[in-house]
């Protein structure tokens, strides 16, 4: 039986407080794999998410290695870029199974990524410049 994970958040609060982060780290840090062919984005996203209480357990630069990594590490979240060199993020999302939830990212706007973002089994979509732990948690908990 897997532990029930929860994103601590103050009702009505837009930003996470240190207390929230501490509470999260203290309880159980969500594990994340970042899949993107831009190294700079992976680095910046890792910095930010780790500061926001996530545990970035792996990075992949293409769809094939992402599938291997996710299969091996079974992270809670796979943050997958839509435009990968070998396959689309939609395809990666369709092929990831088990307990890992997929959140699609792109520097393009939501309206520019098409209907497949909704039908590929991903938990949600977030533009790269709006990436934040709080947003990620909202998506994972079913709030858009």
């Amino acid at each position, binding site marked *: 039986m897997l532990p029930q994970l929860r994103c601590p958040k103050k009702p009505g609060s837009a930003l996470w407080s240190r207390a929230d982060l501490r509470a999260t780290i203290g309880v159980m840090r969500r594990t994340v794999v970042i899949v993107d062919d831009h190294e*700079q984005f992976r680095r*910046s996203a890792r910095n930010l998410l780790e500061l926001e209480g996530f545990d970035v357990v792996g990075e992949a630069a293409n769809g094939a290695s992402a599938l291997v990594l996710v299969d091996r590490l079974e992270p809670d979240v796979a943050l997958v870029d839509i*435009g990968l060199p070998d396959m689309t993020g939609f395809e990666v999302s369709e092929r990831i199974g088990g307990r890992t939830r997929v959140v699609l990212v792109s520097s393009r706007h939501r309206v520019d*990524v*098409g209907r497949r973002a909704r039908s590929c089994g991903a938990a949600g979509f977030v533009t790269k*410049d709006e990436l934040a732990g709080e947003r990620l948690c909202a998506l994972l908990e079913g709030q858009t």
Partner: protein
Amino acid sequence: MKPLRLALLVLGVALAIVDYGLLRDDLHQTVLRSLPAPAVGLSGIVAGLVAWSRRPDNRLGPLMVAFGFAWLIRPWQYSESGLAFTVSFALGWLGAALFAHIALAYPTGRVTDRWERLLVRAGYVVALAFPTVTLLFYDGSADVKYVRPEVPSGILVHANDTVVEILDKGFVLVMWGVLAPCFVALVIRKLVRATPRARRVLLPILLAALIASLRAFYEFLLTFLTPPASPLAPPPELADNLYWWQVIGQIALPLALLAGLLSARLAVAHVGDLMRTLDRVPPRELRPALAQAVGDPSLEIAFWLPERHGYADADGRPVTLPADGPRRAVTHLADDDGAPLAAIVHDPSLHDEPELIEAAGAAARLALENARLEAELKAQLARVQESRVRIVAAGDEQRRRIERDIHDGAQQRLVALALELRAAQKRLGTDAPPELDQVLAGAVDELQLAVGELRELARGVHPAILTEDGLAAALESLADRTPLPVRILAAPEARLPAPIEGAAYFVACEALANAVKHAGATSITIRAEQHNGSLVVEVADDGIGGASIGGGSGLRGLADRIEAHGGRLRVESPVGGGTHVIGELPCAS
């Protein structure tokens, strides 16, 4: 008529009269039975002389004349004169060999096939050797068919009836039992292998040859299967029927040959008619007119385009000429200065009537010049059209590259910077001076604005969703971004060629932008559907109307883009009645 031919004609007529007298008076044949031999001989001579004067370089004429004379000397076998009998017996079957030679050599006068040549040679050898050798042993006593008994050979060396009978039967066996079936097989093969036009020309001649050959089988069967010795033997009454079929075939062969020659002459006359009407024949109808004139529906014309240094069809499309061969042949035509003008690709059988294709080419020269100019113009237009498509395609490719460069370059760097600044904000947390926190927050906001503007710019250059997900998804995205209610009534789910999708998308994009910015519309509909091999994209708004393609609205550029793909753009925009932009783009799938 030249003296030699005139002399041959007179000699032929004289021989025919002598033959008739010999058969009628000496052998007491009926009038009906006395006529065929002179008739066959004379028909051969007359047809041969006509062919000879018409085509002096074709051997068929002399061959036909020789065939006629061979038939005219045959009745001398019944002569009481030893010399006449000997000459006639020695040369009497030459007519059969000549018959095969003529049938297989028609219409060129040459036997080019190896097997046909072999058969013709064998025919001459057998037709001459057997009778000549027989004469060395024949003293008039042996039982030999078609001769008057008791007239001895003029070249008798040693009388021997057994040898004579063996040679007589041997001749029948080889000539009628072996060579005649081979001849029939080669005739059938010639018909099967002929091109459609050649088959039309050959058919009457070869049918005549086949009919005449029936008698040969009968001779063979009669000799070796004499009734009642064999149940397979032919009934004797068959002989009479076959005799008349043989006569018909032998008369028909020279007549068919004559008819073939006359039809070629008629065709040349037809070309003369064509020349008078060619100034009224539009270039597009030149091919069927020429095809009809020379009797070859498969005829094609290729025009020489000096600029391209190659051949093209009437529409200016490049054409590769076939090699001269058994199925197709090419005749090159030059203009008055000797420069290449056109090539006529035709049935190889037309080479047998060179004057016909030459006359047709000469008659059509002016029309060919005009048609070539038209083909040249069309080829140039096609090249302009192709370059137009290439320019649009290159523009599209450039747009895609710019979009990718923005997305993969500046946009990624700004996104990473925004995340880094947000991380710095997090690190500093509440310990940071409020001014610094404000500066960082302002920088993050500015960066997000910059990323948003870059995103808009990239999308305007080329929407990635169009490349990745197709027209339907791109139109949906376009509708979502438009600050007015937009209903998509239809959009093709299947992917279409990228240039077509691009053109259709930009039609919708421009029409929507005009509706929002200039038309004061409150609602818009988009419909993109495939009809009869075209993609039709229609955008209708309820605005003030009054738009036109030339009105500086960006629709002119769109019209150019659509026309480059062979389509057209229409704008219906009555003042106060809304605007209806319709783009039609040819697309196969």
